[in-house]
């Protein structure tokens, strides 16, 4: 069939840099929004560090969204 092209071997160099990009987005997302959440915790006296937790989850979601956008 026309669709049966042999799979293109991904370039190892760009594959490795894509991996580093993904990891640094995740670190940055969780770090930045976790920190903003922690600041809110301290400022508003939110119990149980809920702000930090929610911040980290939001940051991770943002990071995953960015990775998808940048890689596609």
């Amino acid at each position, binding site marked *: 069939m026309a669709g049966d092209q042999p799979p293109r071997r991904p*370039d190892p*160099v*760009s594959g*490795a*840099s894509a991996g*580093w990009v993904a990891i*640094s*987005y995740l*670190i*940055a*997302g969780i*770090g*930045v*929004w976790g920190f*903003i959440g922690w600041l809110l915790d301290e400022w508003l006296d939110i119990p149980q560090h809920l702000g930090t937790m929610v911040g980290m989850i*939001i*940051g991770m979601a*943002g*990071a995953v*969204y*960015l990775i998808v*956008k*940048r890689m596609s």
Partner: protein
Amino acid sequence: MNLAEVPFPPSVEDFFLPSLAAGYWVTKFTLMIWLATAALIVFFLLAYRNPKLVPSRAQWMVESIYGFARDSISRDLIGPEGRKFAPYLATLFSFIIVTNIFGIIPFLQVSPNSHIAFPAVLAIISYVLYLYVGIRKHGLGGYLKKATITPGVPWVIYPLLVPIEFFTNLVNRPLTLAVRLFANMFAGHLILLVFTLGGFALFATGNFFYFAVGGVSLIFAIVMTIFEFGIALLQAYVFVMLAGFYIGDALEESH
């Protein structure tokens, strides 16, 4: 040294070598950096002093290092503009390889890169370089926009994404570049210390069973030394590859 005096376990203190002159401005690390710089200059000059069509072994090595930096890094990651960065990347690559391999050369035996200062300087040079080429090409505003705003994203979520992009592209990159090299060389040296000193410390106990385990520990130290050689090459490659990738990213037209 008496076997019973073998210092064990090794600690971070083992990385702070005594001063040789001028306070702590000249230590074994300083000498090794001078040695690496001098060795590279001499090697490159000698190997390319009289280039031949059929290269000698030294000329072949120099050409492969430069060819690797030019083709695999500059051309593939930066693009047609990348060629002018090939000398920098080749220098960076050979300097990191030499200083990394110092970690397993007898009597040198520790890599300067196991101190954060040396990878930090290399990372700062690369950071300033890619900021400079990015700002020169896109202008300050254009470069910041490129570095912080992902195209094709609804503007409503900019407040969520811009801090992440800013942190990733402008803060995280130099930090991870430096820390990755530093941590690998630090951990490698510590592992070699643990197995070598551990072997001698076990010999010093005089107990037959511990003696056998000490032998295994020393054999493992040799295995880890070979492994460290691979890590030295790999980390130099990763550092240069990422530096090239960041320069290419700074030069790239908007996505």
